[in-house]
């Protein structure tokens, strides 16, 4: 039962992608959208089935492995195409297929009339398959395959509008940075093959203690996996691709760059936690980088003018929270925040998409304003999403973010440092997210709004777009009630079998105290934002140069990597490739002609010459025989 559910969940989107790809122009456009949506809904149903079946087992028996066929079989080493269904995988499967089906349904409305609509749905169905492959993998090899395919889907979808050079450049950037991560992961896997002789999760994690005795080994493996996670989840220092990835269609940004793909890094750390626990320095580095990211990206989000970029930086910031939690061993809290974040971040993106769609593609917030009266339902959705993001009770983000903060502060000096960063991050989150809200929805209607939206009419989006937004709004409201600190925690106990948190649990009183603190801080932030951006009473402070330049990361990478590479390529071209390779191509042609002319001279037509050649050949042969005897 579980196995069937797992396979159906994985293969349904692939089937849709293949059907759309093979159908081509013969397939009606709407059909492509329905096919993709139907397949992800089917996927979700299969995942729910698997969940129910798994819950039927006792807590210690919740791991099911199902094998398709062998991929690599040698006497020392084998890899099979295995799927693993356990609580961690189920959580991810439900999020991917559930939120995914909502977003694909939304796309039917958003991408309507697009000239390449079918290609979009084929790509997005393929993405769903790749992501499910990643989370359902039972060994590192299949995980890496899914990892790579997800990167490919991301590349294809970011660069979906091929006529735009900026989109193509962004797709390349994303792929190249992810390739760095992939390479690091592959190296880590090579080390595992060499020392553990297996890539199966069960086998590797069983040997974790033995592997841990070799400090170099385990640190290298964990570091390799961490670099891969950093690249995929867009954390510092491999984060520069995510803002550019907003060139893709908004549903893509919602699905891939908010809810699912970028959370793959968190999933990897939680999945491979036995390895990370043997390399504590690497794990703490993960937490530290998460904290650094959440601060830096939160600050940069304050000065962004593009509505999607703000949300993108917000995503990086929130994933920083998840890395922080996973880094200190609070796996349950990290995964909980992953789930709630999927809800409200997808909601924010989709609501922003409604706005963008209504304004004819405009994404610059400075040109927006006063949409509250014109798009009230969207305003409410956005408000709830922002509230969940900031962490206002009783919305979803409150419970998950609090769990992380409370655990951080209870875990030693390092934990307290992380906590300080996290609280500062909460303030920044409130600031930039309400800045967005006020800029877009409050105040007077801007010129653009008046031009784009017909007078006296409420201009919400088409039905296909508003319905998923409504569902996500409900999830953003109630999604956090799965786990209330101190009262009930079904979520963490569900995951306990797979990823037992080792962080020190905060006491209940401490949790409630912190909840109060983390209520006051964002309210303060909201008040500041209101003062500056809403009533427009004060002039917004001028954005510091460093923030506008995104903390100079892009500039630094340009100088460190891009310029040297290009100049090296030019130099190699002129010193080596031109004279040696191209010239030698010419030379081969010229010398063949010369050789031909020389050979032609032998064809003198004189019979005596031929006899001479025969005699000469014979004498040489005889000489050879004499000598070699």
């Amino acid at each position, binding site marked *: 039962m579980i196995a069937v559910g797992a396979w159906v969940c994985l293969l349904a989107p692939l089937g849709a992608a293949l059907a759309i790809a093979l159908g081509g122009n013969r397939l009606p456009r709407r059909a492509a959208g329905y096919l993709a949506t139907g397949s992800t809904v089917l996927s979700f149903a299969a995942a729910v089935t698997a969940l129910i079946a798994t819950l039927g087992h006792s807590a210690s028996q919740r791991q099911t492995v199902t094998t398709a066929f062998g991929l690599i079989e040698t006497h020392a080493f084998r890899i099979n195409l295995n799927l693993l269904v356990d609580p961690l995988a189920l959580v991810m499967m439900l999020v991917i297929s559930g939120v995914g089906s909502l977003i694909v349904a939304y796309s039917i409305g958003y991408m309507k009339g697009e000239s390449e609509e079918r290609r979009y749905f084929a790509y997005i169905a393929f993405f769903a398959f790749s992501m499910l492959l990643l989370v359902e993998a039972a060994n590192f090899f299949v995980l890496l395959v899914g990892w790579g395919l997800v990167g490919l889907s991301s590349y294809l979808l970011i660069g979906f509008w091929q006529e735009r050079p900026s989109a193509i450049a962004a797709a390349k950037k994303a792929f190249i940075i992810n390739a760095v991560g992939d390479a690091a992961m592959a190296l880590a896997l090579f080390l595992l093959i060499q020392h553990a002789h297996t890539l199966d999760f069960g086998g590797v994690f069983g040997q974790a203690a033995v592997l841990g005795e070799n400090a170099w080994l385990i640190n290298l493996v964990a570091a390799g996996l961490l670099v891969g996670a950093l690249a995929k989840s867009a954390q510092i220092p491999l984060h520069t691709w995510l803002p550019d990835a907003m060139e893709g269609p908004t549903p893509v940004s919602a699905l891939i760059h908010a809810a699912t793909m970028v959370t793959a890094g968190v999933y990897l750390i939680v999945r491979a936690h036995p390895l990370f626990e043997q390399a504590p320095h690497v794990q703490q580095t993960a937490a530290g980088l998460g904290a650094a990211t959440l601060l830096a990206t939160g600050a940069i989000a304050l000065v962004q003018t593009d509505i999607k970029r703000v949300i993108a930086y917000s995503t990086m910031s929130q994933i920083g929270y998840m890395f922080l939690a996973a880094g200190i061993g609070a796996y349950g809290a990290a995964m909980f925040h992953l789930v709630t974040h999927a809800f409200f971040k997808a909601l924010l993106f989709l609501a922003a998409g409604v706005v963008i769609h209504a304004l004819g593609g405009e994404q610059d917030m400075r040109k927006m304003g006063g949409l509250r009266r014109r798009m009230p339902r969207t305003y409410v959705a956005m408000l709830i999403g922002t509230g969940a993001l900031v962490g206002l009770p009783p919305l979803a983000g409150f419970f998950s973010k609090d769990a992380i903060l409370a655990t951080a502060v209870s875990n030693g000096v390092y934990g307290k440092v992380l906590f300080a960063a996290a609280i500062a991050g909460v303030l920044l989150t409130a600031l930039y997210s309400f800045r967005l809200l006020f800029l877009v929805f409050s105040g007077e209607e801007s010129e653009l709004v008046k031009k784009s939206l017909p007078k006296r009419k409420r201009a919400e989006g088409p039905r296909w777009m508003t319905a998923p937004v409504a569902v996500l709004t409900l999830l953003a409201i109630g999604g956090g009630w799965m786990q209330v600190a101190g009262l009930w925690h079904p979520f963490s106990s569900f995951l306990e079998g797979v990823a037992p948190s080792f962080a020190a649990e905060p006491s209940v009183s401490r949790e409630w105290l912190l909840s109060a603190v983390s209520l006051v801080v964002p309210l303060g932030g909201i008040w500041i934002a209101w003062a500056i951006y809403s009533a427009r009473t004060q002039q917004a402070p001028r954005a510091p140069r460093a923030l506008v330049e995104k903390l100079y990361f892009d500039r630094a990478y340009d100088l460190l990597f891009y310029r040297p590479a290009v100049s090296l390529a030019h130099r190699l071209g002129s010193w080596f490739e031109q004279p040696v390779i191209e010239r030698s191509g010419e030379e081969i042609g010229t010398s063949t002609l010369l050789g031909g002319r020389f050979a032609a001279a032998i*064809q*003198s*037509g*004189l*019979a*005596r010459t031929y*006899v001479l050649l025969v*005699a000469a050949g014979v004498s040489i042969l005889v000489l050879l025989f004499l000598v070699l005897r």
Partner: protein
Amino acid sequence: MLGPAIAWYLVVGSAIFAIGAAGVMLRRNPLIMLLSLELMLNGANLVLIAFARRHGSLDGQVFALAVMAVAAAEVVVGLGLVVAMARRKIEIDVDLLSRLRK
């Protein structure tokens, strides 16, 4: 066996062969070329007969007779060609008959 050893006969046979080869490669008159060709065949014949004597087997002599027959046949055809050329007033100079090239 009386007289020189077999090796001496072989040397003479090789010499006749080499001289014939030189003649084929050097002369331009087709008739002289054919004569040189005959020399080569005769050189080989001598070697065959010598070895037949060495091994006491008649196979070498039989082979030499076959060579003679083939040489005769070849001379017939070669001389026929020369006569045909001469009748058509073609210059019988081997170097001028370089039609093979074009």
